[in-house]
């Protein structure tokens, strides 16, 4: 029991910290930053299921986010569908589009996959702009502020923290469960070496489709919460090219290996944007973007494994100094996999093989 709960402890600590901080009554701006960070952290974590865990470097997730935001809003406002049902329907719609991204990955990889998925995001953006009857065109849709739990719309930003935190906790918890499941190991195997993974019998196609579908579902959830939070969605703020590389960028800056890398990245990028604008102000237009672009280049070049990667290296260094063990020789950078426990292993074994073992044991005994 303790063992299955252990991986969730950091997540619980994060949730408690966020709630505790909210109860101290921070300013509106801090709360706004926190909500934004949590929504984008959920989005980046969802992206990471496909991008970091399965190696499908998608640049098309902006389309999925936009489906979540616009789908939910159009279903609610135009067809009067209840909010939670609307979110579910648009998330399922996003799964269909995500499966299309998965289908692209069966034929393309590397540069080509990235470009094709980027193309998908651009098509979605242009469609959102050019069906003004449905999406409001460039002006977008302003969502009426009808507060209430069943609308997921609230009066104060404090209340929203629980929604965005809930979104993030659900997403991160799914990733944690996935990381310790058979599916998670299969995804890792497909990421590291697809040909070898296939040769040991891992259903690579099904694994990729599962990963990208789940990622699409959760991305759309993040999009829906974003719509309910900002109450104003336009093609530019939920579906533009800038949105489509946001989650990838956050996951890379934070670190694509762990569960919390995307959260760290979302926090850093959001705070960076905010403080650069605050420090420079709008006196010289473009200066804040210039600094942002420059910092982006520097951090990508200096931290290819993200902030979490730096911390891991530092931790390893400290451990080496304390235990006085020599540095390990250069190894191929792969993610380490925990050895499965004996009882966990038994779960993975198919019942039939267990029976045959028992049967053979009985035979041994009879002899």
């Amino acid at each position, binding site marked *: 029991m303790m063992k299955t709960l252990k991986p969730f402890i950091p997540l619980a600590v994060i949730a408690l910290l966020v709630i505790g901080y909210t109860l101290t009554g921070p300013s509106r701006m801090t709360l706004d930053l926190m909500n934004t960070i949590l929504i984008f952290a959920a989005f980046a974590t969802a992206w990471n299921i496909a991008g970091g865990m399965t190696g499908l470097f998608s640049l098309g997730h902006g389309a999925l986010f936009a489906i979540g935001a616009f789908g939910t809003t159009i279903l609610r406002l135009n067809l009067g569908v209840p909010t939670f049902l609307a979110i579910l329907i648009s998330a399922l719609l996003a799964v269909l589009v995500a499966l299309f991204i998965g289908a692209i990955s069966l034929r393309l990889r590397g540069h080509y996959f990235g470009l094709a998925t980027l193309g998908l995001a651009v098509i979605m953006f242009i469609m959102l702009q050019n069906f003004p009857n449905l999406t409001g065109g460039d002006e977008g849709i302003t969502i009426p502020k009808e507060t209430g739990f069943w609308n997921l719309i609230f009066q104060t930003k404090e209340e929203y923290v629980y929604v965005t935190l809930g979104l993030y906790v659900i997403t991160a918890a799914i990733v944690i469960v996935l990381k310790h499941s058979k599916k998670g190991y299969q995804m890792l195997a497909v990421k590291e070496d697809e040909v070898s993974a296939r040769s040991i019998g891992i259903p690579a196609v099904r694994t990729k489709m599962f990963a990208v579908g789940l990622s699409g579902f959760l991305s759309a959830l993040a999009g829906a919460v974003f719509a309910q939070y900002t109450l104003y969605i336009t093609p530019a703020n939920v579906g533009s090219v800038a949105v489509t590389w946001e989650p990838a960028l956050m996951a890379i800056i934070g670190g694509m290996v762990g569960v919390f890398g995307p959260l760290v990245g979302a926090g850093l990028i959001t705070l960076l944007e905010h403080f650069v604008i605050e420090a420079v102000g709008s006196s010289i237009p473009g200066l804040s*973007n210039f600094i942002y*672009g420059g910092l982006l280049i520097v951090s990508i070049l200096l931290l290819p494994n993200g902030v979490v990667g730096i911390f891991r290296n530092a931790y390893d260094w400290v451990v080496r100094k304390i235990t006085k063990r020599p540095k390990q020789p250069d190894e191929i950078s792969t993610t380490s996999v925990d050895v499965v426990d004996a009882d966990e292993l038994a779960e993975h074994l198919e019942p039939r093989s267990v029976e045959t073992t028992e049967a053979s044991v009985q035979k041994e005994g009879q002899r």
Partner: protein
Amino acid sequence: MWDLLVLGIMAGGVLALVAVGLTLIFGVMDVMNFAHGEFVMLGMMATVVTVTATGMNPYLAGLLVLLASLPISYLVYVGIIRQTLGKSLNVQIFTTLGLSIALQAVALMAFGSRTFAFSDPFASSRVSVLGVQVEAGRVIAFGGGILLVAGLWYFLYRTRAGKQIRAVSEDNYAAKVVGLRINRTYALVFMLGSAFAVAAGVLLAPFTAVSSTTGLNYVLTSFVIVVLGGLGSVGGAFIGGLVVGVIETFVGYYFGTQWMQASVFILFVLVLAIRPQGLFGKKSLDSAMVGG
């Protein structure tokens, strides 16, 4: 119909120029340069600003802009692009993306957020091409595009330096073994590719309005052209540019200009699904196909 075809091919000539520059960098250095469009934008912007400030002939101003861009693109190569060579795909994408954001911001700081345009009496005078009335500026842009691409072809296939570039593109390790200076070749290729983008911007400037965000459209369209023509294929990028120019013109006329870019991307996804190596790409492009 005929008018649209001629106009489309005219428009495609300049697109081909942008795409040829991108495919050169893409093919030789294996870098996906998201900042390529910003060089087009900076070329247009600098030409427009120079012409409005000094009243110079736009093509003379353009030549000066092109010369001024060479040291800048060399610095960009040494400072940023060289650091990404051989790194993973996501490092390259986001480094060049950061560069693109920074260059856009530079244009915004230097020139402001206005949309710029100027009218040159010569470039906007009409001439008849194959029975179709076209602005002289577009004809010059098309002719300039053809000339530059032909010049590049001659350089790559008929000179020693061009042969070296092709050797590095084929197998950079083997090229290093036989004593070619890889780093110098890369610098040359990046400057050449960027110069093509700037030249396209210069040729577009007399008849196109420009703002600091114009670059993104050009880079996305030229990615489509590059994939359409086949990775690293100069001839493919050229034909691809003309095809995309024609398609955009037809879609713009029949469905409205807002669908121009969407049509190109739908074509893009279709081409990738049916023939991932592009129209003129080599069959054994193992980076493109899974399990290949």
